[in-house]
């Protein structure tokens, strides 16, 4: 059987796991795909390869797929997201003296209490003329929007009192140690690297800001997805199987060993395994703490591209001043997430398919069964730390709450 070649760009992060495992465990091959993974060192380059034909698809921070569609910094190229590669998995790491100052050294406080303390410190430093500076991995990243959501919801005037800059993940620990930044919101294993070196302390995780926050997606040019739907279906079936393997506790160690290899993350298998197992060491010398759902790659239709997730991201881009709200832009942003492709790929399989394509984000307080067109699906709590909910049909009312 001849295999169809397919190239996927990625950055060395733990949540690039599903494409990597799909390749290494022969799951892509089972679907007739010869997967080639192209590693890069910046999202800018991952995106350029995707736009200019170097790759067929990419592991991408979700908001960047929207930004590319909307034509921010590049010519507008419509993107399609047929599959979500994972929810959350990021943490907020700050310099140890700051963690001491807010009583959060080596303890995971609830996001409301911690947010209030951090907000007080931010306000104080702004009055003193020494604004705190936070790093995020990209201007259009979930990291940026989750951090801003948390700070704003804790009473911080984000535009005035705090500085947010872009730092590449591999430089996170170094930037903290050189005091270039006071804190960073980044994916694993880069928080843990900073902790191991004693230059940072993890004080919060994004799953405590939004329990079901969309993170990385599989993105491709919409035109390509339309032209060759069948290979896309096979690819995302392989990725779904990789998700099954990813969450199997018996496979954690072996999966970490694969990800740690030089051609993938080129990092410590030990730290990677901790992230996979949701076991995070907050401060140097401590025992790892189990943080349920720190990473969320498979259960509860985690891979289903809910249109309301794209809508929420668009709302945050408006709040951050990255886009000017328009009906056309909002519609284009929502069209990026493609539940129709996901449904077509899994029709007639055992994979549960929700009946709706959008939901009230943050609206589930306890595990609930939802309507499906196939299989049985229970969704767990998806709350935001501030208890707000987001209704994609009420964008103006949501933004008016600020």
């Amino acid at each position: 059987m001849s295999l169809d070649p397919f190239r996927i760009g990625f950055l060395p992060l733990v949540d690039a796991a599903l494409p990597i495992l799909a390749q290494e465990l022969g799951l892509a091959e089972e679907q007739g795909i010869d997967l080639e993974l192209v590693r890069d060192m910046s999202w800018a380059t991952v995106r350029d390869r995707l736009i200019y034909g170097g790759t067929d698809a990419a592991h991408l921070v979700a908001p960047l797929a929207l930004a590319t569609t909307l034509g921010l910094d590049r010519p507008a190229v419509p993107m399609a997201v047929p599959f979500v590669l994972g929810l959350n998995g990021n943490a907020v790491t700050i310099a140890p003296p700051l963690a001491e100052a807010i009583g959060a050294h080596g303890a995971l406080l609830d996001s409301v209490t911690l947010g209030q303390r951090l907000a007080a410190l931010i306000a104080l430093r702004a009055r003193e003329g020494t604004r705190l500076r936070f790093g995020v991995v990209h201007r259009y990243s979930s990291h940026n929007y989750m951090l801003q959501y948390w700070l704003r919801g804790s009473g911080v005037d984000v535009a005035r009192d705090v500085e947010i800059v872009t730092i590449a993940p591999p430089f996170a620990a170094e930037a903290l140690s050189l005091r270039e930044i006071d804190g960073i919101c980044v994916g694993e294993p880069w928080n843990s690297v900073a902790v191991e070196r004693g230059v940072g302390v993890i004080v919060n995780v994004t799953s405590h800001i939004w329990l079901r926050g969309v993170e990385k997606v599989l993105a491709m040019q919409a035109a390509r997805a339309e032209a060759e739907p069948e290979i896309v279906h096979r690819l995302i079936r392989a990725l779904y199987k990789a998700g099954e393997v990813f969450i199997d506790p018996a496979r954690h160690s072996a999966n970490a060993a694969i990800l740690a290899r030089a051609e993938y993350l080129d990092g410590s298998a030990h730290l990677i395994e901790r992230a996979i197992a949701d076991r995070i060491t907050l401060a140097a010398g401590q025992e790892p703490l189990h943080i349920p759902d720190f990473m969320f790659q498979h259960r509860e239709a985690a891979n289903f591209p809910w249109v309301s997730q794209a809508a929420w991201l668009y709302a945050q881009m408006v709040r951050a001043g990255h886009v000017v709200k328009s009906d056309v832009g909002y519609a284009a942003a929502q069209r990026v997430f493609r539940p129709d492709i996901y449904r077509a790929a899994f029709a007639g399989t055992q994979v549960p398919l929700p009946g709706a394509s959008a939901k009230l984000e943050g609206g589930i307080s306890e595990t609930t069964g939802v309507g499906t067109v196939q299989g049985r699906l229970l969704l767990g709590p998806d709350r935001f730390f501030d208890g707000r909910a987001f209704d994609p049909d009420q964008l103006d009312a949501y933004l008016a709450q600020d």
Partner: protein
Amino acid sequence: MRIAVIDDSAARAAVIEEGLRDAGLSDLHIFLDRHGLAAKLEACSPDVVLMNLENPSRDMLEETFALSRALARPIAMFVDQSDESAIAEAVDAGISAYVVDGLRKERIKPVLDLAVRRFQAFNRLQTELAEARSQLAERKVVDEAKLILMKKRGLSEPDAYKLLRTHAMQSNRRIADIAQAIVTAENLLGGAL
């Protein structure tokens, strides 16, 4: 035209610089260190920024450009470039460019073409160097294997080589691979040379 070259390889930056100078472009500024890059670039205020695609600082740089209050704000060359094949070639060569808004395309094109050619030349050099290194390594391992055969089998040097070659031909493998197997076996089974 003021050109900034940002690269994490000093050797490649030098190759680019030389090419641009030869073409009569002399207002050149090279940045190798990522520390304080944003401030240094702002002070330099270049018309064109050339940067290697693998540079992890690209996202930081684009953020800086997006926030820049300067009148002449550099944007990714791709925004104003209609020539898709030229862009694909640049990406393929491993280069990205940022150009201040308003600079005419006719002025940019030769600079970019030159940079692409220089990047390609540098890539070729790297490949050749890697090949030369591996040839050298192969010659070394063949010499080592010959020594082992001469010592263990009491052969002359030409006979040792002949034995290696015959075995390689019979088993349809490369001489260097046979030699490597002999050296590995010798190391594993003891009998230091």
